[in-house]
């Protein structure tokens, strides 16, 4: 069974990768493993894993309704795979939700804290109840093999029809309520997707998706296990899906027309292109294929139609869930690779469970025979490792384990430590300072003149904006020279002592301006190759081993603080360079401002003149933005001392 074995190998690899990412997700949190942000709090995990998963599971209620309610007995053979797919789809939704929720261990709060106004409350309850119903619907299948469960099985089969009806009602609610979720954000969702009839659209497309998914799954497993494809059975399902899709397209465009949003279809935004891709995959291509008899009745074309349609409708869910979001921030949400890997991993795991279930239980009339399990088969020999891998069953397990472990290892390598450990602090991109001339009187920045030379009567200043954020610092070069003692003072700033070095900026050394600096290397002190100290040599016994109950560095490092110095060592985390610079300047400025009664010298504007200009504000006394807890209260500025400052 070559095809199945190969597919399983690939699936195990995806599960392995996802396992690595899952570890990072639960160790470092959502921020380190996703591209979600305050601007787009929902992304691929909601759009694909939750909304797509629920939609993919729609085959369950569509087929049970067809067979048990509408009594179309010829489809009886596909009920079991459809219910199994639905069950696994919902199980995958729950797993996906555990990844996406910030506090997954609180998921049971849904049961005890109720808010009946919330569509998400309805979604949660529908998932719980329908998963239970699906379990009860599918349970008779594995129970067949165990005589001890025969009574339970008989009992469940007696209640089959009420269960099926309950399942259909719950599915109807649930498929539509996923659309209701977005009703509350009319200003957020792109107008091409937002609609008051979103619940109806979601329900109709789910029915279509259910039909297409059954076709896809039937042909896919037939290919895998080399069974005879059920083409004749699938053709009417395709025809039914055709009418559902037509109903959908009428509803959707009718809604756009009524809401007067048709003009949006011609826009040039990315979302409009996304809409047309979605429409092509979801409606146009499947409908063309389904309306042409030579495509509709052929196995391979049926398969292709179903795959395209399914991907289109899933794309629709992802779009609503995050891609078609009107983010307020400047950055666009594009899923991080880790998000994609987790989504694929969950699908792979669900597929593996599906394959194992159909191999071991009577999901089909005849269980697919596993040739690997044939006892007459010879043990497998690995030519590379020159080892015997045992019987094909054992050899298969060895290969799958190996695939999982290697993929997990690759995953850990790809994750890398720095990104996870940075906790969302982006490495500040630094550039050479641009020495633009700025004319203070007009407040204009002249981008055309790159270097600062004084222009008649006006003082040329450097406008330093090293991280290119648009927030710069003005630098009065001439004033600095005068204050620091003429030409001899050059080396105070231009200190890098490199050939032709004239204007080395702060960024030349301080590339991590915003990161706090760990001045104390704990690992080195504890390691046998470092200081080789036992814990109790610094941390007092009996207390929590934190920085609060630790003896000061100076107890060992006697020369750390020279005699007579006024510096006190308080914490082991040095502040970031930005904080350090601010503290150096502001502390002294504030003191002098108080002493000399010159409040303006302590103003932020003394250095920051990029975008904010405080100079005209009348009641401004002393303002500083960076450090809390160091407020200096000054007497109100009188016109006299205000002019004195100028």
């Amino acid at each position, binding site marked *: 069974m070559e095809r199945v074995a190969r597919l399983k190998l690939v699936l195990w690899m995806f599960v392995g990768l996802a396992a690595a990412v899952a570890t990072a997700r*639960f160790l470092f*949190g959502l*921020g*380190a493993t996703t591209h*979600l*942000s*305050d601007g787009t*709090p929902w992304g691929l995990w909601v759009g694909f894993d939750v909304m797509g998963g629920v939609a993919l599971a729609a085959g369950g209620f569509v087929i049970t309704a067809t067979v048990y*309610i509408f*009594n179309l007995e010829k489809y009886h053979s596909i009920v079991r795979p459809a219910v199994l797919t639905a069950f696994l789809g919902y199980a995958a939704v729950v797993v996906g939700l555990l990844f*996406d*929720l*910030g*506090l*997954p261990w*609180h998921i049971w709060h*849904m049961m005890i*804290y*109720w*808010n009946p*106004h*919330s*569509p*998400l409350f*309805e*979604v*949660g309850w529908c998932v719980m109840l329908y998963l239970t119903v699906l379990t009860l619907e599918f349970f008779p299948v594995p129970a067949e093999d165990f005589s001890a469960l025969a009574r339970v099985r008989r009992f469940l089969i007696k209640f089959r*029809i009420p269960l099926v*009806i*309950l399942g*259909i*009602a*719950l599915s*109807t*609610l649930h498929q*539509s*309520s996923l659309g209701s979720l977005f*009703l*509350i954000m*009319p*200003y*957020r969702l792109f107008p091409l997707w937002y609609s*008051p009839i979103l*619940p109806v659209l979601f329900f109709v497309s789910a029915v279509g998706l259910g039909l297409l998914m059954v076709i896809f799954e039937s042909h896919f497993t037939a290919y895998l296990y080399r069974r005879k494809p059920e083409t004749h059975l699938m053709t009417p399902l395709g025809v039914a899906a055709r009418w559902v899709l037509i109903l959908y397209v009428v509803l959707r465009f009718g809604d756009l027309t009524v809401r007067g949003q048709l003009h949006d279809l011609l826009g040039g935004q990315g979302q409009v292109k996304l809409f047309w891709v979605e429409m092509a995959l979801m409606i146009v291509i499947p409908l063309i294929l389904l309306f042409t008899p030579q495509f509709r009745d052929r196995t391979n074309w049926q398969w292709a139609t179903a795959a395209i349609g399914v991907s289109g409708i899933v794309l629709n869910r992802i779009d609503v869930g995050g891609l078609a979001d*009107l983010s*307020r*921030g400047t950055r666009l949400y594009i899923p991080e690779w880790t998000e994609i890997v987790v989504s694929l991993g969950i699908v792979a795991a669900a597929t593996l469970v599906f394959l194992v279930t159909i191999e071991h239980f009577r999901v089909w009339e005849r269980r697919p025979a596993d040739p690997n399990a044939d006892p007459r088969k010879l043990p497998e020999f690995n030519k590379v490792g020159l080892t015997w891998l045992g019987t094909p069953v054992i050899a298969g397990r060895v290969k799958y384990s190996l695939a999982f472990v290697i993929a997990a290892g690759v995953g850990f390598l790809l994750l890398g430590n720095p990104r996870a450990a940075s*906790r969302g*602090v*982006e490495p*500040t991109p630094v550039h050479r300072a641009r020495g633009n001339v700025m004319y203070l009187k007009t407040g204009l920045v002249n981008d055309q003149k790159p270097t600062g030379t004084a222009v008649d009567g006006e003082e040329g200043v450097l406008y330093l904006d090293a991280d290119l954020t648009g927030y710069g610092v003005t630098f009065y070069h001439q004033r600095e020279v005068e204050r620091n003692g003429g030409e001899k003072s050059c080396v105070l700033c231009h200190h890098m002592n490199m050939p032709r070095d004239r204007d080395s900026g702060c960024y030349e050394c301080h590339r991590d301006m*915003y990161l706090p600096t760990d001045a104390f290397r704990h690992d080195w002190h504890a390691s046998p190759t470092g200081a080789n100290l036992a814990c109790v040599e610094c941390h007092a016994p009996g207390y929590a081993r934190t920085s609060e109950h630790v003896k000061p560095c100076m107890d060992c490092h006697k020369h750390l603080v020279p005699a007579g110095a006024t510096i006190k060592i308080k914490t082991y985390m040095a502040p970031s360079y930005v*904080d350090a610079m601010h503290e150096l300047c502001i502390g002294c400025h504030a003191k002098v401002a108080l002493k000399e009664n010159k409040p303006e010298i302590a103003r932020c504007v003394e250095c920051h003149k990029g975008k*904010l200009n*405080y100079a005209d*504000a009348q*009641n*401004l006394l002393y*303002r500083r933005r960076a450090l*809390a807890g160091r407020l200096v209260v000054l007497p109100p500025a009188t016109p006299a001392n205000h002019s004195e400052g100028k």
Partner: protein
Amino acid sequence: MKAAILTDTTKCIGCSECVLACKKVNHLKEDVPRRWDTDDGLSARNWTSVIGEPDNKFVRKQCRHCLEPACVSACPVGAMHKTELGPVIYDSSKCIGCRYCMMACPFGIPRYEWSTIVPYVRKCILCYETRLKHGQQPACTEACPTKATIFGDRDELLAEAQQRIRNNPGKYLNRVWGEHEVGGTSVLYISDMDLSFLAYGEHFGDKPLTQTTRVAMEAVPFTFLGVGMAMSGLYWIIHRRMKLQTEQASEDTEHQASPEE
């Protein structure tokens, strides 16, 4: 009394004292620019921020404490709660971390602690626990040196805002932001510039957002019963018809069989 805040952007000098006071009272740590922050200055550690606009204009952004809050209606476990006094507060012990409140908020206010492994939603709660309960005004309004942002009863502040607009013709745009949008908010603004950039939509309706989902939620029991009954009815009809058909068929065969015998 319905607690409310009126911010007059023409009086704001952008000193950010409100931001500092907020940080102090709520024990928020220093802010580090992070990958997932948006550009309005709000974050899990900054519950209010001052946005600089061209021409030395400043707007303070904070939670609007809507009269009919979308976040409260959206939260599946009721972790968001509108108090009698006016503020919308958050109960972290109930939160499951679904972030639906962040999606639902039309002003994009709630922020998330993305960097931690036990993350909570963070937003302005109008100093409910620390000050408002004890009869004090929020820290930000107390700290404002120019009285650009003031605290009071909503009706009184609304009257004050309208009076300021009347008394200073030409100084303000003739509109109180927060009077009617999405059903009205507790935080009001008067300004000499258009403040619609504070929200997602350019043109907010006056209908509360909670009404959009209410229609769908009220249909739930009827849909459930309707679908259930329709399916049961269909089942009954189809199966009865099938039964009659098979009976008919067997009778027919009996009829046909008998003469031949």
